[in-house]
């Protein structure tokens, strides 16, 4: 018998950064990432306007947009541009934290539910019960109970968006746990923790990431809705939602107070949705081309 035969060990050329390359080739992802990045940079650079967001200057009340006040000013003479930029910090921050928090909590609960059958039924019934409330009503109830603060908004929205995350992660975890590489780990005697965190979670992450970008967008919208209802971020701290809420009384005389934060919300939601669409197209194996 001959010795171990080595077939010519030629490897294909390395395929590095395939994911990033595919993402950047995706048109709506490109538009989305540009929009979101521009908004984020604008929020970070907010202090460059040189004006305090809550500085009241009675002389300058209700100035329409002009070279001096690019987005006009409000009933207290505050500069809307400055407030919109500082508001972006608050709104984007809330969106980001809610997306991360609900995503992480959802992922952990989802993976546990998929791995431990005894845990599964009660948890999923609880999630069903939570999902039977509209998310915004649930959030409204929670902020009302916790008191209107930014932290309450974050907690309320995170709780409201957890069930959807749980479902998504559980569904893909149930598929992944039957795959051969998980079986291989089981044969080798891997612990539940290893199977969950080495194998199932990283491979259930794609759909969750897509979901998180959408939660990011919804949270910005939901914060605006809560602020509009008076239980969101409280003035004088500006958020896109409460700037609009404050401008409501002057909608006919000073349209610019509501319109500019509204544009901010729309652009953020649009950018995040485009980004999420791109991620979904690239990460979802069912949509992959031949």
């Amino acid at each position: 018998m001959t010795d171990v035969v080595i077939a010519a060990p030629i490897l294909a050329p390395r395929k590095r950064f395939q994911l990033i390359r595919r993402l950047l080739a995706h048109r709506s992802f490109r538009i989305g990432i540009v929009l979101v990045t521009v908004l984020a940079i604008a929020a970070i650079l907010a202090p460059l306007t040189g004006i305090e967001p809550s500085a009241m200057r009675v002389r300058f009340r209700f100035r329409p947009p002009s070279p001096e006040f690019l987005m006009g000013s409000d009933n207290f003479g505050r500069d809307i541009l400055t407030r919109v930029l500082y508001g972006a910090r608050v709104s984007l921050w809330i969106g980001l934290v809610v997306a991360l928090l609900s995503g992480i909590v959802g992922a952990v609960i989802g993976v546990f539910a998929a791995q431990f059958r005894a845990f599964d039924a009660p948890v999923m019934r609880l999630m069903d019960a939570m999902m039977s409330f509209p998310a915004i009503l649930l959030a409204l109830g929670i902020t009302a109970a916790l008191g209107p603060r930014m932290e309450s908004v974050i907690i309320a929205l995170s709780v409201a968006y957890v069930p959807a995350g749980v479902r998504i992660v559980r569904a893909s975890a149930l598929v992944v746990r039957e795959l051969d590489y998980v079986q291989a780990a089981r044969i080798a005697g891997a612990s539940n923790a290893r199977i969950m965190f080495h194998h199932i979670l990283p491979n259930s992450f794609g759909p969750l990431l897509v979901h998180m970008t959408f939660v990011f967008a919804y949270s910005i919208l939901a914060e605006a809705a809560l602020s509009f209802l008076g239980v969101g971020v409280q003035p004088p701290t500006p958020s896109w939602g409460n700037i609009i809420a404050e401008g409501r009384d002057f909608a006919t005389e000073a349209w610019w107070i509501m319109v500019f934060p509204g544009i901010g919300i729309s652009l953020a939601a649009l950018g995040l949705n485009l980004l999420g669409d791109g991620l979904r197209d690239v990460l979802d194996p069912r949509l992959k081309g031949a």
Partner: protein
Amino acid sequence: MAAEPIIEVRDLDMAFPVRGGPGGKTVIQQVLHKLNFDIAPGETLGLVGESGSGKSTAGRILVGLYEPTGGSVKLFGQSITGAQRQHGLAAVRSRLQFVFQDPHAALNPRMRVGDSIAEPIAIAGGRTRRDRADRVRELLEMVGLPRDGAERFPHEFSGGQRQRIVIARALALQPGFIVCDEPVSALDVSIQAQIVNLLMDLQQKFGLSYLFIAHDLAVVRAIAHRVAVLYAGSIVEVAPKDELYGDPQHPYTRALLDAVPRADPDRVRGPVLGGEVPSLLAPPPGCRFHTRCPHVMPRCRTDIPALRVTTPGRHVACHLYA
């Protein structure tokens, strides 16, 4: 093969409850029925059968993935059934391995190939990270892949190369017994031969035993020493390779061999076997093959034939040989 067998399977039964009976009721599906076989050290037992024969389930039971509903399984002298199951599995786990059919599903796409290969070592504990990396390079070389492959991800490899990686992972802990579940059926013909040869070379080198599960009788002939033929959950024939292929005794084995297309345009094949494998939810009484058998007799419809010795080393479950 006078050596003491390392795998002893006795009266193995496996039944799953499945939903799908009349009116959506849960019914019991008898997937395996009273299997008996041994595997000696350094031996390859081929397990062939069509879909629904239960061959894959049998393989999974032997590595502890499923707990059988009846019978006993002894691996390396340790029982992995009944009360000693947990203790037995813990004792033999490092000596058991599995090679999967689909090399694309068998590797975690988010783990570097080196980490996948080292996983059984990491789970078993022992060895430092550097030691493991050395072992990974050694294993890669053993299966004919370049040592620097460890840093790459599975999607950078072709199907045949991934199967080599899966084999490297299976060898990581120096096992004694590997279940190969259709290891080449997802591969192209020109790559199949590479993997079959690799498995045979590794067997020689390390004295491995294989349970080689396949639907392709020709591949099994190339690698197995003995072959067991499964039909609808029962073994119908077990024989040394040359005897089974040269002189198949069970009517099903004969029909199966006859159905395989040959690369010979002049071959005149016999009559084609009609019918299909019966549902395991409502298997026919008596011999499960009687609904398709060209030699069916009245008693085949009522009595289940036992696996009997016909000539030394050969077992057939058929009333023709009673």
